[in-house]
């Protein structure tokens, strides 16, 4: 548990558009330990998918501009040439996508698609790969796997398709899985099955996971630590139980107050709405909606950083840090 599988250091991701440079992620830093599931919680548009794509080296630059380091096994993925990245992608670091329908190519049989990473990374023949695919399908709970490898994606139900996508992700037994909202398109009972499957697989393969979601409850069940993302920056980080029980950052508190539960009195949502990319402020990006009193020039002008690494539970807020210090 003490070893770090992935270290992200001050990652900045932006894009050069016709309207100038647009920043999406600002100074994102975190680590993922061995066999640890780190949750990335954020609402829509905060850059979660961009983060996932960046971790897998899927952002073309130009027009993307990426600074900062993504250190995997001592190497900075940002500086690696494409040829090296391709070797890592799918084998060491793999992704489970949000929408299984668009993650699978509709004109190829699923067996071929799942076999592809096996063929490439383990250098085995298609026939051998397909044998492994049958085992994979059995492991992820697809009935009659020997016949199903010949099916096309549209012949599966949504839940089954997601199992196929998961099997593709774990095929080469990656050390790090990036799961981008893998259950958002599924029915509740199917979602429960998939969540259980992911948990079992993660335990079995002893892989680390970066689990991206906008659902607080799912994160609280699947992850040990959580990172809260707002407007492209990390606002809070820490163990899931602690963060959700005693949130430090006003945004996290607002989020928790917005979750409906039985017997709760009136919901206490954060007023206003998420800023769009073009509205991102140079200082603290949350301050227009922040309910804290006595916000000052510091909040307006300079963007707050997470507290020093020694703390397990940290928030990026000048007011919070001032109180502690």
């Amino acid at each position, binding site marked *: 548990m003490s070893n770090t599988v992935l270290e992200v250091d001050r990652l900045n991701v932006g894009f050069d558009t016709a309207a100038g440079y647009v920043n999406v992620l600002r100074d994102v830093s975190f680590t993922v330990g061995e066999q640890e599931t780190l949750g990335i919680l954020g609402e829509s548009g905060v850059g979660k998918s961009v983060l996932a794509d960046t971790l897998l080296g899927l952002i073309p630059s130009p027009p993307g501009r990426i600074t900062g380091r993504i250190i995997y096994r001592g190497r900075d993925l940002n500086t690696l040439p494409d040829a090296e990245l391709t070797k890592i992608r799918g084998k060491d670091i793999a992704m489970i996508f949000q929408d299984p329908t668009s993650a699978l190519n509709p004109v190829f049989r699923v067996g071929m698609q799942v076999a592809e990473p096996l063929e490439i990374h383990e250098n085995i023949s298609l026939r051998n790969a397909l044998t492994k695919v049958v085992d994979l399908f059995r492991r992820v709970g697809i009935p009659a796997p020997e016949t199903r490898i010949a099916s096309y994606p549209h012949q599966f139900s949504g839940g089954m398709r997601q199992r196929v996508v998961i099997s593709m992700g774990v095929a080469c037994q990656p050390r790090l899985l990036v799961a981008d909202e893998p259950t958002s398109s599924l*029915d509740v009972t199917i979602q429960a099955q998939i969540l259980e499957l992911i948990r079992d697989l993660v335990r079995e393969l002893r892989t680390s996971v970066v689990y991206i979601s906008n659902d607080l409850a799912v994160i609280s069940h699947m992850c040990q630590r959580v990172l809260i993302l707002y407007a492209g920056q990390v606002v809070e980080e820490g163990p899931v139980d602690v963060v959700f029980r005693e949130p430090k950052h006003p945004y996290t508190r607002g989020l928790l107050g917005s979750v409906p539960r039985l017997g709760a009195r009136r919901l206490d949502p954060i007023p206003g709405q998420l800023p769009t990319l073009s509205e991102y402020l140079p200082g603290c990006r949350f301050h227009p909606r922040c309910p804290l009193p006595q916000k000052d020039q510091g909040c307006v002008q300079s963007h707050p950083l997470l507290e020093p690494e020694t703390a397990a539970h940290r928030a990026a807020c000048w007011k919070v840090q001032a109180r502690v210090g």
Partner: protein
Amino acid sequence: MSVEHVAAASDGVLLRLAGLVKHFEVPAPLTLSNMVRRPAPRVVKAVAGVNLDIHRGRTIGLVGESGCGKTTIGRLVMRAITPTAGEIVFDGDDVAQLTGPPLFAYRRRVQIVYQDPFTSLNPRMTIRRIIREPLDVHSIGAPSERNDRVAQLMMRVGVNPKYADRYPHEFSAGQVKRVAIARAIAVGPDLLVADEAVSGLDVSVKAQILNLLADLQEEMGLTYLFISHDLGVVQYLCHTVAVMYLGRIVEVGTSEAIFTRPQHPYTVALLHSFPRMKSESDEFELKASLRGEIPSPIDVPPGCRFHTRCAIARPECARDEPALREVAPGHWAACAFPGEAR
């Protein structure tokens, strides 16, 4: 006809669904082998006999997964489609087969809020025209006053009236949803059908809209039929909850009863499947207790329609379809062995 229904609470019953049935025909697929003689079209039994009472001023949640029929119920109540059989008794009158002027009058009393805010508003109409249209169609107020009423409605839902001449695409999802709500309440309806009305919204926006809906209900005495797959929202907002599976209601009761003392095995499984914040009581820890996929409403299992996935199914479950029975005051479940699943 013996009609089973939830015992009336102290409030009156605004809407009663009795024996409601809706079948859709799906033509059989054309294959080489059946080109000469096409087999009979298949029947999707979307709603297979539903009895439900909706009380004035209350919110009833209709929950279930794909193919359970809750969206179809919503569309039947809206009279977007006509039932195959059964009655929809609104304020004493059966509206199930209405046409013409009486149907027009009914339309004023029931309105709908859809899931996707942007496709539910005409992209080529300004906000003003969108909210004004119901006023014009139903001749509400004097024409010269209608623009004022539009401004009032916009303020009530939390959108600044000075933006009345903008188009939907210029707003965020939450604001467009507010506009859609404004349009729905413009005619002063009795009943609002919310079809996944807050699904797909961000957490904080969802909370704002839920507050708005709750406030409007208090102020206007609205009745809500809240169709949703999000158990967290239903649990918070709804007084009564009905659980549907493959076209029938399998359990109905107060929100508190359903979520703390579920009787039907499907409800129990749903509650187990639904992730909740760990800080709450973990009576229903997250576990996938249902195997398999949801059957299609074309091929409903015989006997109890849930028996193929039920954890406590007995042999008789494959034969006899259980009726909704009152297992506690105001709490009904369609199971031969209620309360046994955990």
